[in-house]
């Protein structure tokens, strides 16, 4: 069991209740879509998994470790096991494409050779070869998003969490990315993906968790939702 959530609720400081009594489990190697209206709590769900936010109530376990009871020093380790594609990309503005992707590997202490090989390969996979030395501000929206994707997968983490990873991509590129995800998933990485793209969800035929106003309203395998 890779991810376990028990009665998790999250209220933000201003009183907004983003998650409401969520209980669910995600197995190692699963591919899960997270759907729901704007403001349903998808990003909050992701923030809780990587301990960007703490839940107001409930318990969360990632790889059998309690995310809440974790010592401060253990947090980096948790986050290294999770590759996150952020909804707003969160690229380092002062680093080039290459450096942004390489940073995730430097953090885990990879050697220069490893970094060189893998960063190049990954940038290729997301279709950005040739743009290695551009800064994020010199990229189009979709290109920035793909840098974020490359950074999330370059370390081959245990889990890849993707928050709307195709929101700024055209259909073709989006499909390429989905194929990339599928392949990573086949190699054993668990994938949790928040998305609004019905088309993609329908065609991928994977488990879909639907949130509405912070509650899980459906959790089915391979459905095509309305």
């Amino acid at each position, binding site marked *: 069991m890779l991810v376990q959530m028990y009665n998790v609720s999250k209220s933000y400081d201003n009183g907004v209740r983003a998650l409401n009594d969520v209980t669910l489990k995600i197995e190692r190697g699963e591919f899960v879509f997270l759907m729901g209206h704007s403001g349903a709590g998808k990003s909050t769900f992701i923030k809780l998994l*990587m301990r*960007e936010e703490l839940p107001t109530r409930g318990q969360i376990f990632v790889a059998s470790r309690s995310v809440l009871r974790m010592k401060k*020093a253990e947090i*980096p*380790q*948790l*986050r*290294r096991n999770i590759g*996150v594609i*952020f909804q707003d990309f*969160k*690229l*380092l*503005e*002062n680093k080039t494409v290459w450096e942004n992707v390489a*940073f*995730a590997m*430097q*953090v*885990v*202490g990879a*050697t*220069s050779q490893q970094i060189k090989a893998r960063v190049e390969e990954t940038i290729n996979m997301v279709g950005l070869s040739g743009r290695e030395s551009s800064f994020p501000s010199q990229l189009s929206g979709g290109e920035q998003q793909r840098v974020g994707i490359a*950074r999330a997968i370059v370390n081959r983490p245990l889990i890849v969490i993707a928050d709307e990873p195709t929101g700024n991509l055209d259909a073709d590129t989006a499909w390429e990315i989905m194929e990339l995800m599928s392949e990573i998933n086949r190699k054993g990485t668990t994938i949790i993906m928040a998305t609004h793209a019905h088309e993609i969800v329908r065609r991928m035929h994977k488990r879909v968790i639907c949130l509405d106003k912070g509650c899980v309203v459906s959790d089915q395998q391979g459905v095509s939702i309305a």
Partner: protein
Amino acid sequence: MRWQTIKYFFREAKTSLRRNSVLSIATATTISICVFILGIAVLLYMNSGQVIQKLESDVEIVAFLEDDLTTYQTEELQQTLKKNPAVLSVTFVSKDEALARLENKMGEYDLLESMEGSNPLNDSLEIKATNPREVGELAAAVEKMKGVGKVRYGQDLVQKLFSATHWVRILSVVIVVFLGMAAVFLVATTTRLTIFSRRKEIYIMKLVGATNRFIRFPFFLEGMALSVSGTLFALVFLGLGYFYMIENVQPALAFLPMITDINVLIKMGLGLTLAGMALGVIGTFISLNKFLDV
């Protein structure tokens, strides 16, 4: 830590210094100016201390000797005084010498003549105290000695001088302390601003799984580099200015001694360098910690 990582830290610090040039220049400028101000304060403090000491050490007791003292007795008296640890030096002034001085001062070159050949003045000893602040006690002690008549040490003037130097000393310490505090605040403010404008970067690094140490180290190196260069810049200017003064001002003011001992100056420079580095690095660290808790 692995060699690999250390290399990364240095490379990271280097590019970061370049790419955040606005922030780098701001930090270096601030540190530079603060060290410069501190340097001026310390130089003023030390030199005024030296001048004060010189003024104070010019204070002397004049002990008029009794008329009927033999040369031997006078000599003995001088020896006794010289053995006293409270006495720094003793100089004998004969009454002829005293008269000559007086004549000069009075603008009369025939004072002796007008007094019909008899010099009414007395021989005297000019005594300097080891500790000028205890000149009063020493004068009292000297007055009690055999063979000594009246004793004068310009009580009024000396008291004025000492109360002046006392306050100048306090004031200069207060100013150095204040300027030191000002420097700390100014550098803290600047580092806080630079880290503040990089808070998103730090946040993202944390989210990607960087440890605090991993984030801190390049910042530490950056702070170090900026502090050192800022400090050196300030020291060069300070040094040039000060040596210019030694060259051009000191000759005209030989009686007000400036500090020219190169060892003292080097020590001061080292002190300022350390202060500047501490300022920059500690400032960076404190500001950094605020944003590391993600």
